[in-house]
């Protein structure tokens, strides 16, 4: 029996490591309505482990690709990655498939894109949420890659404003995926927004150590709601779906609790309990960069940053469903201040601390 258990454990480890090897292709026929050109633009995309139905980040990128298909008449192809080992394979499949531009969605694909770009100098690549810098802060993006990053802290700041105006318990929460600099940008932006309205509001935070574990997201949200938070904002991909489940279940007739979504408009996950979503228009960025290639305006080796000003970051149109107009007006005034540069939103612990020192005393 014990020998068997040993065998089983060995096999189980192999099984778990193999389980995600399969990859599935999602080819969409080129738009038949488009004028047949001499050479059709071909754009490929490899998602990270989230997949195109994550109702969040990858889903948004996929919408951008679909837009490139319908508006630019491009021929598009998507490969979903089941695990990190798939990144290289998927990228090389796309390159061999003759795509003019190949997208890697998510910081996790940074190394894979870098490698693919160096192996295929005649092909073009794009990566979302990552910029290549060396230790001295020098831009070392390969000449055939465009990096797309977002000022998530700006949108998170606006979500912080909404949370601070809507909380009745003077306690709000932040649910993060993995504790990395990218997600810290969301957290400090959010904290700054909360503090801008009322520095006395307590901000709880929890990290799930995963972007896919929605059960953990739910357990963490339950914990924060039970500790008095009545608004929770998340930046945790698929993990965050647990937040919406938790919000619905923890809402009582005498104590309503709220969730705030991220990346895509997540209103429909909990229509009665969602205040807003911070929209990160990966779709616009993917479309925009693809369009530059179509118009021969593509320039590699650069980092393109999208913020509130560039329309890459925004608040969800469904915000008005549960958030009073007065709050939205306040959010818009902060938005203008950020766009004009009057407010510089912190994105690291150090920047946040100095931001707090400069905050006018109330």
């Amino acid at each position, binding site marked *: 029996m014990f020998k068997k258990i040993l065998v089983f454990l060995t096999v189980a480890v192999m099984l778990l490591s193999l389980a995600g090897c399969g990859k599935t292709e999602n080819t969409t026929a080129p738009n038949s309505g488009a004028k047949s050109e001499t050479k059709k633009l071909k754009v490929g995309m490899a998602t990270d482990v989230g997949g195109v139905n994550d109702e969040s980040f990858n889903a948004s990128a996929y919408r951008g690709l679909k837009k490139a298909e319908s508006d630019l008449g491009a021929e598009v192809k998507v490969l979903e990655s089941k695990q990190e080992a798939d990144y290289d394979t998927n990228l090389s499949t796309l390159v061999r498939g003759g795509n003019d531009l190949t997208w890697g969605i998510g910081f996790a694909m940074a190394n894979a894109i870098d490698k693919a770009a160096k192996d295929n100098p005649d092909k073009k690549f794009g990566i979302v949420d990552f910029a290549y810098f060396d230790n001295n802060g020098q831009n070392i993006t390969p000449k055939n890659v465009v990096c797309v990053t977002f000022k998530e802290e700006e949108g998170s700041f606006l979500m912080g404003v909404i949370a601070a105006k809507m909380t009745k318990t003077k306690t709000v929460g932040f649910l993060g995926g993995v504790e990395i600099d990218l997600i810290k940008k969301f957290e400090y932006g959010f904290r700054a927004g909360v503090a801008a309205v009322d520095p006395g509001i307590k901000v709880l935070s929890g990290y799930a150590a995963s972007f896919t574990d929605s059960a953990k997201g739910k357990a963490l949200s339950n914990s924060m709601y*039970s500790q008095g938070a009545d608004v929770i904002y998340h930046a945790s991909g698929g993990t965050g779906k647990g937040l919406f489940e938790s919000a619905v279940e923890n809402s009582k007739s005498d104590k309503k609790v709220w969730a705030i979504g991220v990346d895509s408009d997540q209103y429909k996950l909990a229509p009665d309990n969602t205040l807003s979503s911070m929209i990160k228009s990966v779709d616009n960025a993917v479309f925009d960069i693809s369009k530059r290639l179509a118009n021969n305006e593509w320039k590699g080796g650069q980092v393109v940053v999208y913020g509130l000003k560039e329309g890459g970051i925004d608040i969800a149109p469904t915000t008005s469903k549960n958030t009073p107009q007065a709050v939205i007006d306040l959010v818009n005034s902060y938005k203008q201040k950020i766009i004009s540069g009057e407010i510089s939103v912190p994105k690291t612990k150090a920047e946040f601390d100095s931001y707090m020192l400069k905050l006018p005393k109330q």
Partner: protein
Amino acid sequence: MLAILATLLGNTLLYATPLTFAALGGMFSERSGVVNIGLEGMMTMGAFVAAVISIATGNPWLGLFLAGAAGGILALLHAVASVTFRADQVVSGVAINFMANGFSMFMLYKIFGGGQTPHIQTKLVKLAVPGLAKIPYFGEALFNNYPTVYLAFIFTFAAWLVLYKTPFGLRVRAVGEHPLAADTVGINVFLIRYICVIVSGVLAGIGGAAVSIGIIAEFTEVTIAGQGFIALAAMIFGKWTPWGALGACIFFGAANALDAIGQSIGMIRYVNPAFFSMLPYLLTIIALAGFIGRANAPAADGKPYDKGH
């Protein structure tokens, strides 16, 4: 503080419920002498079927029921291979895990065009037990819960009743300990094993459904992610008994819940959350090594029965 404890309790049940179903299933199978490594696959299949049926029909109860049926069908394959054809039970179970994972992913792409179901609008909703749910703090955590949570406790009691208080249970235990002796007194070893393996699949399938249409509201490749194996460990930790399995599952659930809540309370904040994630497995290894009492597997566990010899 009480509110935090209550949440801890609620989160513990959240994590423990699916494990309990699968662990009870594994217990039945192993008590009859068939190792069921396929619990993971049966849970995956159950979670998948429950998600699809709930989306298609809008009836989560039908989803739960058919999840059990799907798990049972998968278990029937395991029974045919390991009981009738006396195949290696571990190999058969592993094959089932691969198959369930591959099949559910394949169907997800066929039906939904991606590796995830959409958000399930019609999932199991929490039911409050009249009166008891009004107890301050803990009533909410214990008695305003998913129907699957109550079912897990009812099933544990039923499993204990069946295994120890009925002639059928006595036969199951006899077959698992000494099939030849059971056979000579006229017990149909194959029939008992078939029934137990199928029951294990049904329970594991329900356990899977408890995740996809209970705790969360979607099915993806990572929905089950090893919970079948954890259930197997819980059953061993619980020494192949119903109450032991329940206790081990609650313990494993509590470790997960501490991991989630520990980030914000008192002293626990200074313990790395990864420690709590590791704790259940560490203890299982210790239990297996025989440090916490003896963990005696049924004597004939994992051995195919050959009537001719």
